[in-house]
Every structure is written in C-alpha cells, then in structure tokens.
C-alpha cells in the first residue's frame, strides 16, 4: 500500500472527503526530503492551489497522525515547533542549532533501548518517545570556537576573555595583569618557537604556549 492509499483510507475512515487539496498534501508529504511543519506544508501547497486553507492543513495532519500514517516530533527544546513526516516507525528525533536554527534529523539505537527499559520499569508498552536535542551545529561550533592566546598571530591585538585552568599558574597569570578585558598583543616567539613574548599593559611577558593555551581571547 502506498502512502497515498493509506492516507486516503485514514481520511475516509474518519469520515472525511478526498478533495484535490488533500491529494496535494498527500503528495507533498510523501515527497518532501526533510521533516516539515504545518506552516511549511501550507506554504508549499498554496503554491499549487491558492484556495487551500491553513485549518485544512491542520485538520488533515491531525487525522493522519491519529491514524499513525504520519509521525510528528517536536523540535527545539522549548517545544515551539512540531514537524511531520511519513510514519516509518523509526525512532528519529531532531537536533536544533541554537545559533543558526538549522534542524538535523538524528537517531540512535539507544532510543529503542530506552523504550524497552522504560517499558519494563512501568510494565507498559512504550510506543513513542519524545526527544529533542539542541546546541551548536558543526559549522557554528567551528565558527564560534573559542580562540586561545597561543593561536594569536604576530602583531594581532586581542582581548582576554577568560583564564581557564586552576592553581598557581592561573593565579600567577592573573596577578601579572591578565584579567578579563585586558588587551594583549603577540610580539614574537623565541627562536625555537616557544615561549612567546606578549605585550600586556605596556610590558613584555613571556609565556610558554601551554600557558597561553589557558587564556581565552577575543580578536579585535
């Protein structure tokens, strides 16, 4: 049975009619590459038939979901968006990038395990698990990666953001004036590349690269 046939059955079973608008929706749902939310589906359908209405889209989606012909999933941890896709009975969920908003479908065999575990815990038959993941996507992570002082190029000015680590070295670095917001400039590396001479508060301070790594900076 194709998806379209299942969908028609589901609509009929719930007492609905198969209109051309609904056929458009069935078609779109079976062809979209990524999971789609109600708004997105409405916009695509409206391009083919301007008479389609948003309530129709919602009603159709709800009916199909009730009949388990399609599956839905919340994206983003605040549960503001719900996306739909053909129900392939797979435990798929979504990762939303908090910076660029990109949504990525992800899955894990652990979800199945989780379902079994939860099931045995409460003696129920757990059919669905709702899960959301959020954070920085790969691109954004690369772009926003925190720069440390050892990566600073010759003559480039930068500002200290944070001193990481613990103990005497960190204490010393801060005592020497490397605190949040202070300007640092890399002057030169020693003949063998390490340590490196930095200009801080108008004086020269030499640090090994391993120590400079403890200092997070911001360019500019």
């Amino acid at each position, binding site marked *: 049975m194709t998806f379209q046939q299942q969908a028609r059955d589901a609509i009929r079973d719930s007492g609905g009619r198969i209109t051309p608008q609904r056929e458009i929706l069935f078609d779109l749902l079976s062809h979209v590459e990524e999971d789609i939310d109600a708004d997105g589906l409405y916009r695509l359908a409206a391009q083919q038939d301007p008479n389609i209405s948003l309530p129709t889209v919602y009603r159709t989606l709800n009916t199909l979901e009730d009949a388990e012909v399609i599956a839905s999933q919340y994206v983003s941890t605040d549960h503001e968006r719900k996306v739909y896709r053909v129900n392939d009975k797979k435990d798929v969920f979504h990762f939303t990038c908090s910076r660029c908003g990109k949504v990525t479908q992800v899955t894990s065999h652990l979800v199945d395990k989780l379902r079994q575990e939860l099931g045995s815990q409460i003696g129920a038959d757990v059919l669905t698990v709702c899960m959301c993941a959020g954070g920085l996507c790969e691109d954004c992570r690369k772009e926003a990666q925190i720069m440390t002082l050892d990566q600073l190029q010759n003559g480039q000015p930068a500002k200290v953001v944070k001193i990481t680590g613990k103990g*005497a070295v960190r204490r010393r*670095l801060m*005592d020497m*004036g490397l605190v949040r917001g202070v300007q640092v400039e890399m002057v030169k590396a020693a003949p063998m590349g390490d340590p490196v*001479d930095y200009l801080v508060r108008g004086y020269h301070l*030499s640090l*090994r690269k391993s120590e400079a790594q403890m200092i997070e900076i911001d360019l500019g």
Partner: protein
Amino acid sequence: MAVSSMKIALAGNPNVGKSTLFNALTGSKQHVGNWPGKTVEKKEGQLYIAGQEVIVVDLPGTYSLTAYSIEEVISRDFIVHERPGVVVAVVDAVNLERNLYLVTQLLELQVPVVIALNMSDIAQSRGFHIDTGKLSVQLGGVPVIKTIGTRGVGVDALKTAIQQLASPTVKQAASIDYDPNLEREIQQLEATIQAIPALAGQYVPRWLAIKLLEEDEDIVARLSAYPALLTQATEAAGRIEAATDDDAETLITDGRYGFINTVISGALYRPQVAVETRSDKLDRILTHKYYGVPIFLLMMWVVFQMTANVSAPMLDWVDGIISGPITHWVTALLGLLGLESTWVSSLLLDGVIPGVGGVLVFVPVLTTLYLAIGALEDSGYMARAAFVMDRVMRAMGLHGKSFLPMLVGFGCTVPAVYATRTLENESDRKLTGFLVTFMSCGARLPVYLVIGAAFFGARSGNLIFGLYILGIAIALLTGWGLKRTVYRNKPPQPFVMELPPYRAPRLRDVWRQTWERTSEFVRKAGTIILFSTMVIWLLMAIPARGEGEFNDVAPENSVFGVVSQVAAPIFEPAGFGDWQATGSLITGFVAKEVIIGSLSQIYVGEAETVDAVDEPMPTLTEDAAFIGSSFVDAAVLTVQEVVNIVPRTLNLVPFVQIPEADFLGIAGDEADTTALEAALTQAYTPLAAVAFSVFILLYTPCMATVAAMRQEFGRQFVFYQIAYTFGIAWLAAVVVFQGGTLLGFGG
C-alpha cells in the same frame, strides 16, 4: 609614644630600583643577611629622619602577595606580623598598572603606604605624563613621590612623606569596589574573624577574609585550628561561584585591576602611538629567530673566557705574594720568636698559609664571574637567555630559569645551589640543584690547569674544554633520566616571566653585588677551606705506623696516608689506584681546589726538604717592589686577556687565525713547569691523568656544596646526590681509562 626606632619596609616588583633607592636612603649604613631560616637575602639599613633613627628593611621583590613563592610569603609575613610603621612601595612609573597591583594588596593589609614613583626619568623620556597629585587623591590619600633612584632625586621628599605618614593621625581611605556578591561574603567572613580575638589581634580581618576566599594555601594551612572558619569560607566561595558564574579568585583580581583603572584614569597620560623603544629594537636582534641562539652562545663564551682566563693573572699575583713575601715574613717572624722548625712553624707554613692562599686565590675568579653575571642580570639579558633557552632546558625537564644556576655553576657550585631559588617550583629547584654539580666549577679549573699543563702542555685547552662539555653531557643525560623516572608524574612547571627593558648596567651596583657575594664566599666557604686545610695538615702530621713522631713523619706513614692506602684499590681500574691520588681526592671532598694543594703537599712537600736552598732573604723593600711590579704586570695581563677574548672568539671560526695580543712579550713562556707538574708526569700516564680529571669533574661535590644542598633540599636529597655523583664519576673514569687502553692510548 615611646618611639624606640621606627621600622619601615621597602616593597616592590622585581627590578623597579628597590635596591638603588634603598642605597640612596641608607647610604652605607646597611647590613646584609638572610631572612630567618630562609636563604632569601635580607637587607637592613638605617637612616635618620629629623634626627630620629629609622630602620629600613628591603623586602624581596615580588609581583604579588599570594603564596606563590617563598619571597611573597616572607614579604607579607613581615608586613602582617612586624607591622612596619610605613611601607614604601617602589613603583615603576613606566609600568604603572602592573606595579600598582602590589600596592592594592599593601592597602588591603592596612599599613600606611607611600609610593615612590621610580624611573620617572624614563617615563618622562617616553612621553608619559603622570599627575601625582591626582593619583594620590584617587588612591585615597596615599602620597606619591616621583623619584629617580640612580640620581637620588626625590629621596628627601620621600623622607618627609615617611615622617608625616608615621604620625598616627593620618588616615588612608582607599577602598576597592568588589563585585557585590563577593563583597557581601567578605563582610560576613570579616565579622566572623572579628569575633575570634586570637585572629583579629594578629591579622587584618578584611585581608584575612579575602585570603580565605582566594583559598591561599599558606593561610589555609596556618588556620587549620579553625575548621569552622575554613568551612564557612569554602561555603562562601561556593555561593559566590553559584551567583556570579565566576570564582572568587577571578573576581578579586578583577576588582583590584578595576580599582587600578579608576586610580590611573585622568592621572596617567601615555602617548597613543606606541613608539618602538630602544629596548624593543635591541630585542629584535638579541632574541632574533636566527641570531638569538648564536648571540646567546657568544655571551656565554665570553663569560666563560672571563672566568677561565681574565682572572688568571690576578690569581697568579695573589699566589705569588702568598708563596713569596708573606711566607718570607712569617718565616722571619717565627725566627725572631725562636719557633723555626717546630710544629708551630709547620702548622703556619704548611697549614694556615696554604689554607688562606687557597681561599684568596679563589677571589679573583669569583670576582670576575660575579661581575659578568651581575652585568648580564642588570642589563636584562638574563631574562632573554631564559627566553631563548627555555625550549632546550625544558627538553631536560628544566625551566628556562634553570639556565642561570647552571651558568653560575661554572663559577662555583655553592652560589649555584643558592641561585636555584630563582625557580619558583620545588621540583624544578631540586632537579636543577641536582644537575648543577656537573657544571665544572671554577674550583675544579685549577686542577685541570695543573694536570693539563703537566701532561698536554699547549694542548691542555682541549682537555679542559672537553671536560666542560662532558659535564654538560652528563647533566643532560641525568636530567633526561630523572625526568623519565623520579619526576615522571610531576606536572610541567610554569614559565611566566617578565622580560624587563634593557638597561646599561651600572658599574657601581654591579660592583657592590660582586663585593657582597665574594666576601660572603670568603666568610662562609673560606672558613671551611681554612679549617679543612688545617685538619689535613694534622692528619698528615700524626704518625700511624713506621718510624716518625708528631710533625715529622713521611706522608705515607701518617694517618692520612694509611686511610688513603686502604681506599686506593677502588681506583685501580681507573688507572690512578695509588694512595697519593686517593689522598688528594679525599681532600677534594673538603674543597675541590684543595686537590692541588694536597697533591703538592704530598709530592713536592717531600721534595722541598731535599733542596732547601739558602737563598738570601729578600729585604722588605725588595718584597714591596716585587708586590708592586707584579701587580702592574698582572693588571696589564688582565687587560690583555680581556682584549684577547676578541681574537680567541674570532679564531673559533674555521680558517681564521688572528694573533693574540702579548703586551709583555712573555706569551708561550710556560717553561717554568712547577715541581708538582714534573712529579705528576712521572707518577701517571696521560690516560690516567685524563681519567683522574674526569673523576674530579664528576665526583661528590665539596663539603661547602653539600652543606648548601642540605640546607636547600634536605638530607635525603644530599644522600642521593653523593651516591649518584660518586658512582657516575667512578664509572666514567673507568670507561675512559679502560676504553682508552683498549684503543691504544694506554702508553
């Protein structure tokens, strides 16, 4: 108020001119010693303000008052427990922000502070403008006096400020605005501390509260008797972290530097365009990617030349006077007293005078060495040397700063052991201290010189250079090995070091330091050397077997000879298994330079009795003339040696051959091989002599060094050090002798 004498302290970052100002304030009325129980130098002096005596204590130079190094703990303990009437904070005007950081901590200790804005000449020449009045107001009434330490400018104004500040009516009211969350916790802790009389009486409560929030190890350890307070502090730190997402340490430092920003705003004008200073230009060359290392090596070569050659003429001069005129005079004096040829005369002529000579002969070497090191330190190059060398030193598991003790080790191991203090970390210090003995010290050099001259004549330089290299190689190997075993689990140590601006070293300051260090050697090591020479004389005077009575016994029949004979077979495989060599090595434990003295006592001492010639006794005028003319010669030769560093350096380049200067026309005139050298060539093969030299290079350090190491690193360390050095020395000597014999150098 019954004022006995007020105490004031000088505090400041390293290299800001503290010592210079101290000298300007106290003149020559000063006393150099150590902090109780510590090897950190303590300088105390007196000055008079309006007829009243004031004692000035020079605190060690530090950047902060945490528990990061012994110096910091010493400084703050002094301020906390001795409560000086005034603390003079010496501040580098060119580097105001970082220098004021220490001042913020002094203010937290609630001692009256006056700021000496030193180096104000340099600040001016760089186009800085500092409004001292405004600075003073923004610091809550801390007087700020511009000074130029080197020219004594501002010293009188400083004295007046000290005097005014010492009156208890003056209040300083600077307060640092900390983050409100932090401030709240500080105040709560402060209240708790205030309620504990034992603490409130001893510490400034607010300061102690801050230290507790900083989790200062030293303070936490000292307050272990107050667990409730410590728990309260830990909880407070936790609350701060939860509320601000920052640790207390960060907030405190931020607060202090924030305070500094407000203090200098409007009071400090700095030219916007950063001019490249002369120091920066110099640095472009001296730490250059390609020239940096060769320049470093050249510097070291020059220092080496200075200690090895430049001091030699003066050394000969001192030696000549002691063995010439002084011996004559003492002999004559003994004759007048009717004591000639008694044990008293023997004690004086064979024990005391050679002992004194052994100490004094060392003075020119140390003086030149300290002059060289002083110049390197004062010029600011030493920090660059550490910067350039850190990569290499780290490969040995050491710190760039370990280079300094290593270098000093070429002069004398004792100050080298003390020089390890510049290293902040204990394991760095110990490792450096362990290896420092392999740097062939100046006391070993005369031994090589005699052996070299005896067996290799003009080629003795090769032997000596080879020995130095061998010492370094053994140190490298040992460091490498220790790092992979004993120090395997130690985390790498920090290298956070200021590169101070270059300055022309001032001869007067360098000389002063040289004088202090050299006279310290004479006082400390000198007594040991003198004492041990006398002990050896005694051992050689007591008969142990055969015929002979006290002070009239053949060396081999003395107690000394018997002990040496028993131990001698150990060195059979190394080619010098006779009692004479062993005996001299035993005396060498007392001090390495004694080896030559005892060798000549053993070999030449006997010979002398044979050819006791009746030379006419020189008159006093003749002696005076001899002393004078030989001094002039020595002075000329010293200059010549300095000049000759140039051709000697250039001659290192292949195919370059520049003749060396020879002012007196006596170069190459080395025919007067001493009696000892002649005796040595008869007793040993050249190969055995090399093995002997190698052994001397590596074996157990002298007693003075052992004493210094015990003080610095503890008994256990000394035990391992002695065992290891003896073992490696024996092994190396045997390898040289047996290997050499196999290769056919045995003849």
